[in-house]
């Protein structure tokens, strides 16, 4: 990234309080590699031309790292705030200012000789804003999310010399061996793979395989596929809960052919995806779900779990003991 930012969430407190950050703006033509893509700050894509704000007086002497928020790494974390993008030679969605829980990322220099006046005001605001976040809660990172596979379907696809390493090396390299056998190393193969498997991929579970280069390897959940229940969908969780509680022949449909197998698949899915910290103990799944329903969310990057939403935990942790 360089000294500029764009897509700023200008109504956010870090840009308005206690100082109103008055940036110097410039307009530039939208880079070709931004065309056709969206990001958290550009859900409908970047406009052309697009506006850039100056955070440092001039371009740094060496390239700075780029954080790409939409590459399927972390944007599924509840409460994550994307506040500005940096100008990236790689892709739209490169974060330069963001917050997750008590942690804030500032992607520019904070040397006062390099910061513009607006950047200084913003940094001051960030410090006050973060003082407000001292009891914010978030989750621990375990694995990149499944969204990375969708990125491989387009990254470098449109150039005169397409970037093939994504579909030839990185995508298959991120899969368990069994799943590689059902993949053709091409952009079309990546399209087909995503269409068939994306909703049913999972990784990061205890005992699953890891690779030195790619980290946790992704597997396809054959139980969820057989039930037609994407593992991240609320309706799937509710279907598993209903199936898992069925007693043999006691409920409507419970004695249907294949029902017992469905029940076992649902129970395995629940065991696979409901985080042990909130799983029911000595009660039915329905009772558990009725109690926990509003506290739950599904997060890929913690290891593909239905778990307590950190924002809910944050509110609960504010409980003040009354005398």
């Amino acid at each position, binding site marked *: 990234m360089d000294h500029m930012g764009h897509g700023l969430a200008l109504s956010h*407190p870090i840009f308005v*309080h*206690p100082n109103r950050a008055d940036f110097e703006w410039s307009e530039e033509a939208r880079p070709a590699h931004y065309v056709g893509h969206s990001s958290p700050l550009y859900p409908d894509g970047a406009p052309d031309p697009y506006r850039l704000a100056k955070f440092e007086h001039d371009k*740094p*002497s*060496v*390239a*700075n*790292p*780029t*954080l*790409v*928020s939409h*590459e399927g*790494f*972390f944007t599924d*974390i509840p409460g*994550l705030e994307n506040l500005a993008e940096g100008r990236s030679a*790689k892709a739209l969605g490169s*974060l330069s200012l*963001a*917050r*997750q829980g*008590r*942690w*804030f*990322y*500032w*992607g*520019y*220099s*904070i*040397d*006062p*000789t390099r910061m513009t006046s607006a950047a*200084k005001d913003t940094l*001051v*605001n*960030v*410090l*006050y*804003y*973060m*003082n*407000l976040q*001292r009891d*914010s809660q*978030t*989750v*621990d*990172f375990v694995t990149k999310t499944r969204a990375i596979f969708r990125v491989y379907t387009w990254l470098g696809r449109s150039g005169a010399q397409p970037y093939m390493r994504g579909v030839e090396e990185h995508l298959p390299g991120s899969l368990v061996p069994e799943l590689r056998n059902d993949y053709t190393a091409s952009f079309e193969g990546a399209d087909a793979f995503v269409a068939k498997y994306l909703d049913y991929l999972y990784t990061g579970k205890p005992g699953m395989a890891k690779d030195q280069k790619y980290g946790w390897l992704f597997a396809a959940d054959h139980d969820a596929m057989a039930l037609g229940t994407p593992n991240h969908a609320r309706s799937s969780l509710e279907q598993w809960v209903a199936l898992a509680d069925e007693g043999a022949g006691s409920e409507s449909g419970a004695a249907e052919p294949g029902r017992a197998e469905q029940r076992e698949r649902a129970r395995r899915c629940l065991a696979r995806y409901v985080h042990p910290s909130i799983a029911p103990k000595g009660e039915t799944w329905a009772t558990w779900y009725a109690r926990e329903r509003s506290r739950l969310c599904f997060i890929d*990057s913690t290891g593909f779990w239905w778990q307590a939403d950190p924002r809910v935990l944050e*509110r*609960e942790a*504010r*409980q*003040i*003991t*009354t*005398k």
Partner: protein
Amino acid sequence: MSLRARGLATKRGSTQPELATAACHTDKFGHIGLPGDRTCGFDKGMRSSHCKSLLHRMRLLLLPCLLALFALRAEGLAQDVEISGIPDGAPFGVRARIDRARLVIDLSFKAGWHCYARDVGGGDPVRLRMRKATHATWLGDLVLPETKDGKLAQNVRLVQQLRLPSDAVDFDAVLDLMVCDALQCLEPIELRLHGRVEPLRVLCVVDVIDEHAERIRGFLDERGFKATLATYRETTAADCEPHDVLLCDSKLFRAAKLDGVRAFPKTNKPMVAVGFLGTELLEAQGIALTAGYI
């Protein structure tokens, strides 16, 4: 005798007044005093090995207590606001903090109890008033949690953005509350919030304390913070405790020294991680935020 004079209040529209505890007293949150003399003088004149051994054991016993008190004191930084006017047996807890940008008030209501975000016919909505001695300016309205029925229940955070003149350090305000359950309201409650507004204490962590680091510290001091410099390699969790926010700096990619960054302690303090070292730091802290580094 009127209902109010007897400590009874009637919920608007209710015909069933019930006893409410309305005797006010002063209360404080988050302020635990240290012993006046930290050495306590108990080792003066002790010379024998028995006495020294006893003293050593006493120290071993007392040290964790003192450290705990220090920790509580550190958490309850000078920004914690003193609160008075909480009725005895109130069905809610309250604490508040202030810095030069915001006043934050946390309320926790017992099950069944609530206050009001807006007038829905049950009781007056919560209101924040400045007292005359304070020179703060409220910026915008008191920010309340979203509520469909106008009631604020369970854990409630109220945030008021404010501006203080650069030389103002005293703060004094009143929070008006009507606290009710399904049948009754307590007497209207006035919570007085008062205290001193201290500068935010920023621990600025750098790879090397050099001119670049000193420039950052100078900038922070100039902008009203109380900044301290420390290096990644030498900073411990205990060093972070007395500060409000950590600002973890980085020079440019390849110019920054990684020494101590990945081993930097996990603390409960908010952290602003800068640039290249920031990505390394956050990854080491188990934060997904920078896992997209390419």
